[in-house]
């Protein structure tokens, strides 16, 4: 993984830069010793590590603005970081840049039940929002599996999802407003407690921009009333195709489950060995379908889902009878990653999305690739929305296995794009999938995205080296060659 070359001129000015930051953030807020910076050297994509030049922990939007303005004036690079749980290296530091850690922005500012929203600082954890409102029966819907540690600001940057996206949407569908600081130090507010920010939807653009456009300093999220009941149905199928057909049939029948997860036989075995959830070990494809809502509706839909599954040849149909059993059904799925960690020294988690109708084809092809590379692949996925999480098992101490793993991963993502899917459904591009962007996008597509980047950050100072395989200078991107005096195209109908 190649990052932009370090700028010796910046590194030579390190002590000046540290002093300037100390003038903005007094006391303990600037960390420049190696031991102190060590916890920041990587995020959850821990195969890649890099010490930052210096770490700064501001406490106010005004400090963030002063830092960014200083960095803009002095052409210093900045990497923003929330909870540091990115699976794609989105918050991996750069050696000649400042790591802007937002951990001190950890307060819930306002809870407004009547308007069903909460205003929080970006360092508040995803689960922290729900914890703050659950005693009143409310919650915040997006629930990435890192929700205990990941920050809301990071969720905005990554447009985080979770297992309930099909019914409740991603972060972008659950945000009402943000306050953010631009690279030039300007503070702007987008949206608020009302719906649909006026003007261009920059809130939507910011969401999922992976920390490349601005630094979020406040977030207003939409709160939802907790559904009164949830029940889970465990469905085992003798073939993966049977399970995939069942997923399509449930949706075609007009049911949108709260969650619909699928695991292949190997993943089921691992998870069962790890937590003993009572999964059927003979199933080639296992589904967990969760229905939520009023009790009468949930009972009704559980019946219908069970009927559909029966019609598709399910060999196991078990319905959770109480909350304890529902949680148990989920326990195996939620522990699937650590469970796989028990049977392999390392694993790489992929995140492609594909049209649901291509699931079976993609699984078969993945199996072929797995054989070709001589590495096992275990599959868990959000079947309801076609978001795959293939786990490639390997040993990082074996350089050849690491290389084969990276190549296999890239081939699987190319496969996803080939069948009409995308490189990443929820983990982000970061550094991990950066060099594969050309598989999904043309150069023109990427240039257009970079021009948008230039509108926010003309010197590419904010989180450089992420998302785009090759950075082009804004001046170059903005150049427009207009040929004069060309005739209108004669064959297009005109009147």
């Amino acid at each position, binding site marked *: 993984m190649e990052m932009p070359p370090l700028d010796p001129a910046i590194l030579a000015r390190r002590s000046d830069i540290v002093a300037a930051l100390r003038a903005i953030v007094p006391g303990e807020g600037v960390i420049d010793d190696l031991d102190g910076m060590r916890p920041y050297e990587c995020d959850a994509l821990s195969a890649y590590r890099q010490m930052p030049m210096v770490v700064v922990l501001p406490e106010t939007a005004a400090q963030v603005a002063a830092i960014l303005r200083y960095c803009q004036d002095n052409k210093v690079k900045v990497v923003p970081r929330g909870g540091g749980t990115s699976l794609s290296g989105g918050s991996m530091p750069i050696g000649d840049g400042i790591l802007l850690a937002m951990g001190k922005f950890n307060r819930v500012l306002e809870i407004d039940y009547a308007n069903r929203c909460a205003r929080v600082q970006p360092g508040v954890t995803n689960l922290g929002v729900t914890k703050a409102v659950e005693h009143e029966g409310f919650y915040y819907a997006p629930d990435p599996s890192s929700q205990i540690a990941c920050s809301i600001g990071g969720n905005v940057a990554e447009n985080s999802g979770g297992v309930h996206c099909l019914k409740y949407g991603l972060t972008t569908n659950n945000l009402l407003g943000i306050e953010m600081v631009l690279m030039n130090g300007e503070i702007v507010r987008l949206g608020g407690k009302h719906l649909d920010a006026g003007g261009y939807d920059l809130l939507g653009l910011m969401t999922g921009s992976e920390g490349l456009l601005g630094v979020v300093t406040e977030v207003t999220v939409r709160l939802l009333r907790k559904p009164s009941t949830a029940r889970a149905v465990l469905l085992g199928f003798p073939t993966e195709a049977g399970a995939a057909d069942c997923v399509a049939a449930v949706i075609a029948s007009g049911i949108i489950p709260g969650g619909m997860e699928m695991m292949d036989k190997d993943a089921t075995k691992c998870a069962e060995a790890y937590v003993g959830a009572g999964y059927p070990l003979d199933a080639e494809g296992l589904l967990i379908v969760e229905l939520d809502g009023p009790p009468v*509706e949930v009972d*009704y839909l559980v019946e219908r889902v069970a009927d559909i599954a029966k019609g598709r040849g399910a060999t196991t149909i078990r319905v959770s009878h109480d909350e304890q059993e529902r949680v148990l059904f989920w326990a195996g799925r939620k522990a699937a990653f650590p469970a796989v960690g028990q049977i392999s020294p390392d694993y790489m988690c992929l995140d492609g999305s594909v049209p649901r109708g291509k699931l079976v084809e993609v699984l078969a092809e993945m199996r072929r690739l797995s054989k070709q590379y001589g590495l096992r692949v275990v599959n868990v996925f959000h079947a309801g929305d076609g978001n795959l999480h293939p786990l490639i098992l390997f040993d990082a101490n074996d350089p050849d296995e690491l290389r084969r793993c990276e190549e296999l991963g890239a081939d699987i993502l190319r496969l996803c794009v080939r069948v009409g899917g995308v490189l990443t459904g*929820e983990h982000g591009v970061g550094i991990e999938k950066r060099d594969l962007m050309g598989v999904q996008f043309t150069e023109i597509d990427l240039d257009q995205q970079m021009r948008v980047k230039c509108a926010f950050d003309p010197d590419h100072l904010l989180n450089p080296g992420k998302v785009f395989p090759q950075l082009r200078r804004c001046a170059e991107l903005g150049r427009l060659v207009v040929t004069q005096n060309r005739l209108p195209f004669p064959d297009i109908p*005109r009147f």
Partner: protein
Amino acid sequence: MTSTIKPRDAKELRQAVEWALNEGVTLDVRGEGSKLALGKPMQCDQMLDLSGLSGIVDYAPEELVVTLRAGTPMREVEALLAQRNQMLAFEPPDLGPLLGREPGQGTLVGAVMGNLAGSRRLSAGAARDHLLGFSGVNGRGEAFKSGGRVMKNVTGYDLSKVVAGSWGTLAVLDEVSVKVLPAPDQTATLLLLGLDDASAVRAMCSAMGSPHEVSGAAHLPGRTALRLEGVAPSVEARLKGLRELMADAGAKMQELGTLESRTFWREVRDVTPLNAAPDAVVWKISCPPTEGPAIMARIEAKRSGAQAYYDWSGGLIWLALPPSDDADHVIVRGALGATGGHATLIRAPQSVRAAVPVFQPQPAALAALAGRVKESFDPKGLFNPGRVG
């Protein structure tokens, strides 16, 4: 306007824009032109008619996605989805009659470009929440795409969001993929009668915060309506629960069944209640739901003859004011005060729309940023110049 150019495929669309760029010609980009009377009046050199790029490219009901060409009429899309008991969950309004045209006109992409949404905005989102991806041409004459056809996608910037609601000023679209959802089996409406604005908004907010999954909350003079949708046993059970919850409001209650409900909510969606006064100027105000009545009170204190109703649990005010040269924009926007939110002038004579800001003016830093974003797509200002000014 001198003439019209009507491309028949993606290649011709790109060529048309490239030609306009080379000639320095500005383009009035339109599908069926059903919303021309909305926005700032434009002076364009040429019309770019997208109606030649029409038709469904692919519809996969079990994938919950439909892909179609930019000129495809909304009525065609809705009829197709209805065959499979699906719908556009954002409930796009038909503003034709409000804007002095026949009903049933307009394209789906037109609704996306205005980021329109009906009463279900509260629970299902707006057009922007349902646009999965697009292909089109930027103001540099380059064909590009963003997003895709899958539900979950964070690959690259989500340009679909910024294109939705841009009123055609960033790019000319060729093809879009849109998320669709199952249509509800049953719809019921609980009407609370005789509540004043403040009590009605309190009741609506309480209903929205209940577990009864209310999918529409509107308050018309004398009638406050709460909509429930879903499978029959669920709608019945929630209706009962909602009745009990609403007993506190002390209002007389009535129920509407599925068919009556559909008519009622279509009228709320299409702003039919304000159609009676054809000369009135019409504003759309988006605000925090609980602030709605106070905003209305501030407007009524300064301007008599206002007619209004609330949707989105109080967060959307449809307001009709007697005709005036400036549409009372200072009063309307002044009434928003510090609550946040925005007011859009939806209907007014051309001369009025030319004279006052149709869309909510933005603070300087934000306006400058929006200007740079516009430039990043359309550096020469070819597309719908001035429409969102």
